[in-house]
């Protein structure tokens, strides 16, 4: 099953490679990984999306907890939570018809066009990974020049939170 694990870790050189190294050394798979400092610059928040049986997920969380740089973690999948991903897409829109069509889909998916020139639009869109996938499937694939996705961010719903 797919799990989204949120980790607070020391914002130190090498912390990211400890986590990445753990996944490759033990043969766990990573679907996506995002990391950036938190409001407290000494800590980073990482979100990892991984897949595995219950036993594997249990080992993954234990092994992550064992890393000295990991301060705390939660498996968001165990409770209700929100996931979001940011995507930037550059498309070729050299005809009026294409400009029209792309604009319409962007509106339907509640994205926005953030950069424009005679031949290209750059679209920004956030949502769940499913929604972003759906957008990519909807538009004419021959128009796509570039897709950049941030990887998934997650946070628990309600008062539950991951902090020191």
């Amino acid at each position, binding site marked *: 099953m797919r799990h989204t694990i949120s980790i607070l*870790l*020391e914002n130190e050189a090498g912390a990211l490679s*400890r986590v990445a190294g753990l996944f490759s*050394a033990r043969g766990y798979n990573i679907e996506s990984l995002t990391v950036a400092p938190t409001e407290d610059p000494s800590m980073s928040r990482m979100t990892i999306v991984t897949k595995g049986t219950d036993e594997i997920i249990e*080992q993954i969380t*234990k092994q992550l*907890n064992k890393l*000295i740089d990991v301060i*705390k973690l939660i498996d968001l999948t165990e409770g209700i939570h929100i996931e979001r991903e940011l995507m930037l897409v550059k498309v070729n829109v050299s005809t009026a018809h294409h400009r029209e069509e792309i604009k319409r889909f962007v509106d339907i998916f509640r994205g926005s066009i953030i950069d424009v020139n005679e031949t290209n639009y750059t679209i920004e869109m956030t949502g769940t990974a499913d929604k972003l996938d759906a957008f990519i499937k909807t538009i004419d694939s021959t128009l796509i020049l570039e897709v950049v996705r941030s990887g998934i961010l997650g946070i628990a719903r309600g008062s539950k939170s991951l902090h020191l």
Partner: protein
Amino acid sequence: MNKANEAEMMIGGDIFVNALIAEGVEHIFGYPGGATLHIYDAIFKQNKLQHILVRHEQGAVHAADGYARSTGKPGVALVTSGPGATNAITGIATAYLDSSPMVIITGQVPTALIGNDAFQEVDAVGISRPCTKHNFLVKDVKDLAETLKKAFYIATTGRPGPVLVDIPKDVTINRAVFEYPETVEIRSYKPVVSGHLGQIRKAADMMLSAKRPIIYSGGGVVLGNSTKELIDLTRLLGYPITQTLMGLGSYPPTDKQFVGMLGMHGTYEANMAMHESDVLIAIGARFEDRVTGVLEKFCPYAKIIHIDIDPSSISKNVKVDIPIVGAVDQVLQDLIQTIKETDQKSDAGALTTWWKQIETWRAKNCLNYDRNSPLIKPQFVLEKLSQLTEGNAFVASDVGQHQMFVAQYYQFAQPRHWINSGGLGTMGFGLPAAMGVQIAHPDETVVCVTGDGSIQMCIQELSTCQQFDLPIKIIMLNNGYLGMVRQWQELFYDKRYSHTYMEALPDFIKLAESYGHIGMRIEKPSEVENALAEGLAIKDRLVFMDFVIDQDEMVYPMIAAGKGHHEMLLSPERELA
């Protein structure tokens, strides 16, 4: 910065030495180079910290490891950058897999050159990441003392392990005020100590309801200094106990409740009892594949209780019913208390039947061997060694058949006396590890049991032994083969002995003598006992004993790959009792 402060400033090299002294380190094993020159200069200028110069960095780390395993104190090794660091890796991985508390210091090129492919630069932190508990790169001399404190703290607490500290050369010459913190706090590292009382109560209940219980204990008991608690619990319950390779020495081997080692070369009675058990009590053991046999056939009838300090060891290979995370000594004390206080009693009738069953397995006498052979049997050498030293010697071994023979025939009367590479299985470990043990215990008998293959992997350390007057007793079981590999080729590859014959062996006697040691060759069974007694009686010299043994001897009993505990291969001689 005012004048007074400047006076208290020290260069990094001196901070390093003073930090180690403040930490209580007395011995450090190492080998110098360009990146560690300032540190070596600081070592030269003092006499509190003794440096033992090895002949290869692998030897330095194994020696520090042997020191750590035999004392419980952290072992410290110091190597230079680049090849010094890479040579140390085998030793570090060896310590990691056996959870040995160690601090390894690697020199590094100056901070300004890091990343430039400078002379003798390797990414020591990157290379060692998967085989250390943690590691550090010190970028500023101001952080040096505290980082060293953290390294010792992490190495010696929780589940112990090696920690590497990489120190660039400029950090060792830059100045800072020396202040060694008494304690450190690491917010992301809080090892657990006591186990969950609810779980302990459940475990006590399950243990007392057992009809065919067995205790299976491992190296965690030795590392956690919990021998007394283990003995108390085992005696209180009256249950059979088996131990892993790493656990030997933490329960009296001559006690009736001890059924021997388990696993691939464990005893028939231990493995059969594991297979038939209904409650398995795992204490500081990690269900490694050499212990469990094939997992599908592992303990089919047993409910499992597992006590371990490392949560990631629990349910990693085998799903357990009652996990208890905590320091072994604490958990066992609580468990003993709980059992003493409850009204619940163990099932005496069932236990009697169980013991009867175990005695029939024990009666197979699975460790028997041919005692009438005209050739020296390795088992005989170790049986005699065990008798002559009354099980009280420190025995470091290498890896192979000889290692298994020690485990089977040497009756370790004390913990921390059996020093071997169980997890990584590193040939070359024995001699340098024995050096570390001898440095820590100058007046004790330290034996290195080795093979003709293994000894050649760190033989250069004979020179270190000469320099530091280490009177180690080397017992080489010379079968002219890479015996353990040959055994598999004999059993499973139709005797195609591909590259397991040690052609062109040196004359070990002359070799030992050339290093200033005493050499002995023993070729007949009738000479074994006297030779051992003679060698052991020499207290001030290293004695290299080359025992020319039966080349065809195999380690039995054995669980072959893909088999379960109940499917052991027994030795053809087992009926000779």
